[in-house]
Each structure stands twice: as C-alpha cells, then as structure tokens.
C-alpha cells in the first residue's frame, strides 16, 4: 500500500540505472543516513558505539571486500584476515616512517599495499580453481601473517611485538572519542560502499560475474581472464586492507598479528555467506548479524545463568548451524530474504 512503484516511470536509461530506483527506497536511505549521522552519536552509549557499531561497520567493509572476490568474481578465499593485516601494518608503517603522513592517506596506502599482496597471491587463481584455490589461500593466510611477525622493521623494532596504533588526527582534529571514531568509520565505509556498488554494476562487475559463472565463455567473448581475476583480487584486498587498518586504528588500538588469524577469515566468510553472496547489502546484513549474535548469546547465557564457556561453545554451534541452515533454505542469504520481503511489501495488504 505504501511501498508502491506505481506512477514512478523511468524515461531515460540513466534513470533506470539508478542504485535506488524506487522513491520510497531513496527516502528510507535518507532517513537511515540522517539517523546514523545525527541521532546515533547523540543517543548511543559509548559501549554501543565501540563494541557494536564500529566493529559492525569495519567488518561490513571487510565482508564487502570478500564479497567482491568470492561473491562477484567467484574466487573462494580463506585468506581475508591476512589482507586486513597487511593493511593495518602498512598504515602503521607509513605513519611511523614517513613524517607528516596524513592518516587518511596512510589508510589508503595500507589498502594499496594489501592490494599488491593480493595481486601476488591472486596469481595462482589463473591456474587453480574451486576449493583447490581455497586451500591455496590458506597459504596466503598463514605465510603473510608469519611474515608480519618475523620482520622487525615492520613492527618498528618493538620488543614485545605489540604495537600501539597511532592516534587518528586529521587536520588538527583528533578522533579519539567513540563518537568521533564512529563518524569517521561511517564516512569511510559509506564512501567505499558507494564505490563498490558502482563497480559491481559496471563493465568490471559484469566481467567478474561472467568469470564466476562460466569463465570459458567469458574468454570467448573477449574478457581477459588474468586481468579480470587479478583486478578482483586487487580491489578486494584493497577493501580488506582499509578495513584492517580501521580495525587496528579505530577499534583495537593496537596493531598485532594475532588479531588477524584464520578465525577472523572464517568469521568474514560467514558474514558473506549468511548476508548474501554477490550482494553489497548482504555484506552489511551479514556483518550486522555476526557482530550481534555473540552479544545476544551472551545476554541469553547471563539470563539463564550459564557459564561463559557454554556461551562460547553455543556460539560456535549456532554459527555452524546457521551456515548450514542458510545454505539449505536460502543460499542467497539475508539479502535475498530482504528482497523477498520487499516484494511482499509491494503487494501488501494483498497476498499475491
């Protein structure tokens, strides 16, 4: 009744190609952004900001990166956390070794370093496919993180191996409170999400999906496999690198290799699977779900007076069960459920 496209005619291809073609969606997005920018920092508690919203945004960005590689380009990767680590260490080192380096540029350069590593470790994808490729991305995960622990120059010769991330100061304005960090992360993630959405709807995005769906046919119509796959690795790793830098600077406060373990790679993969493979919105939905779930389980465990070990084991079980459930019931994840919901909403109050 309220969610109607009736009367909204598109009279140009440009209008037809908008990201949000339905007026109600645009209004909803504007409201959401207003809430996110104005209301949330004012009303949310520091805990809510630091422990839920900031990691949610950061993981959404990483999930977006992985979605580009696995969801759009079809290259399954278990090495996401390694690229995040490169981004974090890269940003740290650029700030530490280049005097006067603006921190945003350091994040970008961290992302670029991750992209370069991504291209290097993406080269095998030209020969290897499917879960052989997934198994070889494990090499990336373990080797890269090991390198970061063993090269003292990268940790600025720190004795303990734990480095404190530098403070975020842009043009003299310090981003040290949860509210400010949240706004910064929100801005970065929003911009990068927009860029990603443009990319996946353009020629590059179509080439990725073509390679994912049938790479022999893609080759025949003139798509260069090497360039397309390596670009996917590069862009994906860039996103993961920036996410990793934000993870260290705006969330953890330290730059440590242990934070970028295989476990993190799996968590991000789960976000992509549950949220929706091949969907920008899905990356956000999946991240939200996975960030919120342990919190909910903890609250439940507290409420039922269960020991914390039970809660953490339950978390593993629930994750696992949810993955299986989504793969059986809705392989396209929450994003598809959202789409179905919108379609039902179009018809409401009629059943069909």
């Amino acid at each position, binding site marked *: 009744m309220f969610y109607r496209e009736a009367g909204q005619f598109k009279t140009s291809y440009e209008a037809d190609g908008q990201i949000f073609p339905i007026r109600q969606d645009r209004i909803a997005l504007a409201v959401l952004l207003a809430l996110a920018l104005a209301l949330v920092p004012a009303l949310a508690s520091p805990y809510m900001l630091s422990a839920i919203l900031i990691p949610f945004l950061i993981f959404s960005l990483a999930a977006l990166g992985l979605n580009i590689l696995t969801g759009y380009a079809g290259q399954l990767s278990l090495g996401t956390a390694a690229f995040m680590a490169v981004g974090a260490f890269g940003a740290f080192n650029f700030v530490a070794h280049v005097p006067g380096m603006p921190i945003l540029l350091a994040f970008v350069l961290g992302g670029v370093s991750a992209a370069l590593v991504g291209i290097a470790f993406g080269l095998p994808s030209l020969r290897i496919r499917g*879960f052989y490729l997934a198994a070889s991305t494990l090499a990336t995960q373990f*080797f890269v993180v090991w390198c970061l622990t063993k090269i003292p120059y990268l940790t600025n010769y720190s004795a303990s191996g734990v480095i404190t991330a530098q403070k975020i100061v842009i043009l003299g304005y310090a981003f040290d409170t949860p509210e400010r960090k949240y706004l910064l992360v929100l801005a970065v993630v929003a911009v990068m999400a927009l860029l990603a959405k443009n990319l996946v709807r353009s020629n590059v995005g179509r080439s990725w999906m073509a390679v994912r769906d049938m790479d022999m046919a893609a080759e025949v119509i003139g798509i260069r496999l090497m360039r397309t796959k390596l670009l996917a690795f590069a862009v994906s790793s860039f996103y993961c690198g920036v996410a990793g830098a934000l993870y260290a600077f705006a969330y953890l406060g330290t730059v440590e290799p242990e934070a970028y373990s295989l476990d993190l790679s799996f968590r991000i993969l789960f976000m992509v699977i549950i949220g929706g493979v091949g969907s920008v919105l899905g990356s956000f939905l999946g991240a939200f779900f996975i960030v919120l779930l342990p919190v909910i389980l903890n609250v439940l465990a507290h409420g039922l007076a269960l020991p914390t070990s039970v809660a953490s084991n339950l978390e*593993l079980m629930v994750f696992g069960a949810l993955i299986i459930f989504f793969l059986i019931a809705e392989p396209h994840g929450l994003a598809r459920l959202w789409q179905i919901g919108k379609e039902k909403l179009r018809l409401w109050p009629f059943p069909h």
Partner: protein
Amino acid sequence: MNINFFFEVLIGGLLSGVMYALVAIGFVLIYKASGVFNFAQGAMVFFAALTCVGIVDKFGVSLWVAVPLTIVVMIVLGLLIERLVLRPLVNQPEITLFMATIGLAFFIEGLAQLIWGSQVHRLELPIEDVPLQLLMDRFNILVSQFDLAAAAICALLVTALALLFAKTKVGRALRAVADDHQAALAVGIPLQRIWAVLWAVAGLVALVTGMLWGARNGVQFALTFVALKALPVLILGGFTSMPGAVVGGLLIGASEKLAEVYIGPYVGGGIEGWFPYVLALLFLLVRPEGLFGEKIIRRI
C-alpha cells in the same frame, strides 16, 4: 651435519606424516564416495577422540568398552549429518557443500566441547611412547615404538579401505555415487543406505585417527587445526586416491620437519605453520590436479 640426526628428523617427519595421512584418508573416503569435500573431518576426529576419552573419564570404563560405544556414536553422528545436511543439499554445486561442511565443522567443535568440556584430556593407549630399542642399539636412531605402531595401523587401514572400494559391491556402489548422484539413484543404488555405510566407515577412521593423535598430544581443541594440515596433503596426493593421501602425508610431514630444522633457524622459526601450504600452492601451479588425482576436462 650429523647424518644420524638427519635421519631422526626425517623419520620423525615421516611418522608425523602418517598422522596427517590418517586424517587425509578420512577426507578421501568421503570425497571419493560422495563428491563432498568434508571440511568437518578434523572436527569429527576431535569429536571421536573426545567422546572416547570422555566416556572413559566420566563412566570409569576401560578403553575396550569406550571404543565400541564411540563407534556407535560416530555412526549416529554420520547418519544425522547425512539426513540433515547432505540430503537437503543434494545436487547443489560442490562449493555449496564445501561451505556447508565448514559450518558443520564449527557446529561439531562447539558440540564436542559443550558435552565434554574444553580442557585437555589425556588418552592412554596400550602402546608406549618409548624408543625402539632395536633401532637405538644398531643404528643409534631415536624412533618411538608408538610412531611405528601408528604407521602400521595406517598401512592396515589403507589396505582395508582400498580393498573395500575396489573389490566389494558396496565399494562399487560408493564409487558410482561419487560420480553422479542422480545416475546412481536411477540405477537403483540405495543412496541413503550407502551413505550411512560411508559415514560409519569415515567415523571409524576418524576414531582411529583421533585416538592416535590424542595419545600423542592429548585430546584438545588444537587438534582441529592440525586437521587443516590435511589439506596440503590432499592437494599433493589428489583428492580421490588413498595411496596418494599416504604419499602426500609422508611428503608433507617429512618436508615440514626438515624445513623447520634446517631452514627454520635462519628465518626465526615457526615455518611449520605455513610451509606445507606454500608447498602445496607451488605444487598446484605445476600440477593442478595433484600427484594422483584425476585430470579435470572441461567442455564448452
């Protein structure tokens, strides 16, 4: 360089490779017979070992009682997996099934620790972890009796399984199912029953593996990460060959230990964590289907 020391490291590596091979055999078994790459194999090994030890600890019975009970539990687990996870996903692309087994791995790990607790359990087996006197005396090489026994058990298992696949009716049915589910159904192979047999056997292999690993290192969560090492083993040996799994395991075990001992000190150690994976990666670049695997031909 002490040649004796080299042999010790080599043999030690080969024997730890035997352990990897055992996990890999479980993978190959399931892949060969259902086309499913069971990422949860490591979790199943963990679950089997933990259940066995848990039964011994909680109910105070001997291993001779616990083992058969655990086998029953593993069969039930296998049947549940087949019913709840595999059957709904029949005919989905391989990658979907693979991701489902990742979810399954997490689920089983959580379940195992929920039931039996997360602390490390000790597992006592009748074989002792002492050096074999004979080799010690004649060649001055330190080789544990336990490791040799494990190698023997592994060889036995591989032979038995190879015979199962090649010579028996059940084995033939398993191979048919692996190739094409629908075709197998069409010729009347009772898919569900075959898979039940399959997962029962896989459970048994997991139990043997779990017990040997557990006796070595104690039954603990880290076991599941060790199982990840089976992936490079499979890449080297091919996903469908049991002899390949053994050869791959030996290669990985030996090379990993040798690299750690001889290259490790120059680069700060910790090579074991990634060496097998990088080796497998380099190998895949040369031979994308592994040493013994089947060549994949794609038609357009």
